[in-house]
């Protein structure tokens, strides 16, 4: 893989408006800071190689390399990425009641892992108003507070970096697909750090079609309702074309096109709807807002699910074939749109002297 430094990160990601604010480059050094969904570089750094560049999910992402490091296989020609099994799932009886975005599967998995000690901390993303705020959670009772979708891009990986520095050894983390990709980069120690240790123990990915720019989203919401009154957001399935804003005084509907205008430019290049580099990926089950779709991708993901089922923290069911087809089609559409856009703009598989957004064998694209 190509190494690079902050200068190339600025040119290749920030200047192209590709930064999604995942926080992979944050909390490693004094230069990159995240605030209100945006990552900024405070001062110039002169290093020609750095972790900021190596961890970033928006520059020189070699999908075969990453996939080999994680799954022992090249990048899958499958719109859902590499996986072992797909299920429907929901929180089990031992989770208790709470406000979940959907079925509570994520909370169930995280609570169980904390309870059994298979993770010693969970990096979760809560909300302060509309501002997504990542946090390190070690108390099982705190998990539910972070169990709602934020919809705005969050620097969750910055909190993972900080939790690693603070000495947590087995970190569970709930991430969006771009954050999962960043984490996959981090986990293969691309800068060959001495004494590197993979401190992630369970990566739970969330399905994602796009996120929102915090400041723009806040302005939009403020046009409709006092931000303080917002409890949660929801996107009812098509053909609704609205965003539901659940407030203290009932539900407000905002036309989806207005919301989509606030989607960061970077999301247009995202080829991953289902968090392909997580241990397990979770999304809302089509047609059933109280249930989740669950994709198990790795051995340790499989183990986490099995044990959570065994101990009553989640329950599983069989995903109807029709649902899987729809999911695959939606993920495939996103993937193809992103590949086409990136390819049209010359951001894929660039010559070695020019930084690519990502690298993927042409053959694989064809097969997808």
């Amino acid at each position, binding site marked *: 893989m190509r190494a690079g430094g902050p200068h190339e990160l600025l040119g290749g990601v920030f200047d192209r408006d590709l930064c999604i604010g995942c926080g992979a480059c944050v909390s490693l*050094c004094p230069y990159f800071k995240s*605030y209100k969904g945006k990552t*900024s*570089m405070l001062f110039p750094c*002169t*290093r020609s190689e750095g972790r900021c560049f190596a961890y970033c999910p928006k520059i020189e992402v070699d999908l075969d390399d990453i996939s080999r490091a994680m799954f022992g296989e090249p990048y899958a020609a499958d719109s859902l990425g590499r996986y072992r099994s797909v299920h429907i799932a929901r929180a089990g009886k031992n989770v208790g009641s709470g406000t979940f975005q959907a079925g509570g599967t994520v909370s169930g998995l995280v609570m169980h892992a904390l309870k059994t000690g298979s993770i010693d901390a969970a990096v979760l993303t809560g909300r302060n108003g509309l501002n997504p705020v990542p946090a390190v959670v070690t108390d099982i009772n705190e998990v539910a507070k972070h169990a709602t979708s934020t919809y705005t891009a969050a620097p969750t990986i910055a909190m993972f970096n900080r939790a690693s520095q603070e000495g947590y050894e087995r970190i569970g983390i709930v991430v969006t697909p771009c954050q999962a990709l960043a984490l996959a980069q981090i986990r293969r120690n691309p800068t060959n750090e001495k004494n590197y240790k993979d401190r992630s123990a369970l990566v739970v990915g969330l399905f994602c079609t796009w996120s929102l720019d915090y400041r723009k989203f806040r302005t939009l919401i403020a046009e409709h309702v006092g931000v303080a009154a917002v409890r949660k957001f929801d996107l009812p399935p098509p053909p609704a074309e609205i965003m539901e804003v659940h407030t203290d005084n009932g539900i407000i509907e905002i036309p989806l096109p207005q919301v989509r205008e606030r989607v960061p430019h970077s999301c247009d290049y995202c080829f991953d709807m289902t968090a392909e580099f997580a241990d397990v990926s979770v999304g809302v089950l089509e047609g059933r807002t109280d249930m989740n779709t669950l994709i198990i991708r790795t051995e340790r993901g499989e183990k986490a699910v099995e044990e959570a089922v065994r101990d009553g923290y989640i329950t599983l069911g069989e995903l109807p074939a029709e649902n899987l087809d729809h999911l695959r089609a939606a993920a495939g559409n996103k993937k193809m749109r992103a590949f086409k856009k990136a390819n049209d703009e010359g951001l894929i598989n660039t010559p070695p002297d020019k930084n690519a957004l990502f690298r993927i064998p042409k053959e694989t694209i064809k097969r997808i």
Partner: protein
Amino acid sequence: MSYHTDTNEGAEYLLMGNDAIVRGALEAGVSVASAYPGTPSSEIIENLAKASADRNLYVEWSVNEKVALEVSFAASIAGLRAICAMKQNGVNVASDFLLHVALSGTRGGLVLVHCEDPGALSSINEGESRHFAKMNEVPLLEPGDFQEAKDMTKWAFDLSEELRSIVMMRSVTRLSHASGNVKIGRLPVPKTRAFFSYSGPMLDPETGPVLTMPVPPHHALLQEKIRKAAEIFEDSPFNTYTGPARPELMIITCSACSLYCREAVHLLGAEKRTGILKLGTTWPLPPKLIRKYLSSTDTILFAEEVLPFMEENVKVLASEMASDIGIKKFYGKNDGTIPMINELNPDILVEAIKKILSIDYTAVDPAYAAKAKSFVSSMAPVRDLTFCPGCPHRASFWNIHNALAMDARSGFVCGDIGCYTLGFLPCGFNTMKTSHSMGSGIGIACGFGKLTRFGMDQPILAVCGDSTFFHAAIPALVNAIHTKSDVIFVLLDNSGTAMTGFQPHPGTSFDAMGNGVIQIDPAAICRSMGATVEFADPFDIEATQDSLLRLLEEKGARVLIMRQMCALSPEKKGKKKYDVSVDQAICVGENCGCDRLCTRIFRCPGLVWDFERGAAKIDDVICAGCGVCASICPSGAIKKTEASG
């Protein structure tokens, strides 16, 4: 024995130009002195304050130059002699009042000393306040050396009383801050009775009310004063000529430039070919004197700093006299012989004179000059203009810079006048983007803050020191609050007029003479105007940045007072709060995760890069012990412990 009180007439002292001016004022029996500090003028008031008890003076640091002139003027029309001092751009501040003082006239001698800074060694402008003399019809004097500075000051009071007009006297850095021998004169018994007579006839200059109205008769009287001044100046001993009766070249010069002219003529051995007419009375020019010397030659060179003030005024006279004295060849600023920026020096004069007189002379061998230049660039260490070790401004700008960078909406800082003006440089992390006159930071920011309707959504901050706040920022802040302008006003309160030497200001509890005075609280002023006021200690990096980030989300005029005393203040200097050290084993240095943040970016002079060990270290000799670097170190390698004492 101090020169302030020495009554031994004829005793000789080595005095700075400003000290000579002080002695001249004391010999004139001055009773009141007022000023706003500004380099190179500040020592005048400081030294008059030292003499205040012995000589029964009232001396004050006024809130700004306009008020200073008003204070001195009051003494004048109450029959006392008064002196008012300021730097060049201070005259701009005082100029509105100056226009009216000229018109109303004065009683006791009133002298305005303006010390100018050609080359802007300690200024952010190269302003020329001589033009105010001409514009406002006020006599102008320019001493040429240290003895003259003393003698001319004393005479200026007599002149002022003879004309019943304020008199301006211009010094420059190389006179105010250089030293020379001065023979002192007699110290009089100062006048002690002040009384303002106002019951006489309207236009009576000694007993009537002091007004500028009715304007036409006052203006006619003023112009009569200027005509009379020109007559007096015809015989002034401060206009001197040295050289042959009919020189090939006549240099007309004034102020410190007269010394450079003498040196240049001497270096070229051109004494027999060149005459030097040194003018001490540069406005109005004495026409007969000028006619006499213009008649003696056909070639004239003007040597003055900065703009061609004297040059153009002489040329007006020369054109009026042309039918009698003939056509002259002029060299000076307008033809490019003498630069119109920066200070002059003997080298510049040598170049000009040798060209005009076709003298073959090499001041410096070019090969030697080239060699010297290469040595200087290769061997002299880089010395940035920077803040002192432990300076609160470094921490303040660090916080502001980081908050604006994190906020990521292209916010910026409008700057003002003080040490913190360096905020536009790397030592202030290039945070400051505008800098103009005193108080203009908040004024400009106020204007920016009203541009939201034109799509401007950049956060706007203004920074201002505590002394500048009182000087000229308050009206602009009133404007910002009144118009609901979206600005953050950051008061960098370092507890004194630090840049010019800790002169007191209205926020301090003592005056120029060391007496207790009423202390004015900036926070209370801002609150009373309806602004929200918050405080932050800039050394508390995290809390200050949090405050800034929060304020950046709010609307309207917000005030944040960053309070931390100047590291050089008498209370703080030499006292370390913390012992600071670097654990070089932990220091990340040039590696990923730091890249020498402390020595490459933060750059307090107390932090040094240890090339041998590849780690930072503390220079214990100059470290002021503020401990801020311990807060910014990303790896915790910089340690601070409470200093033992």
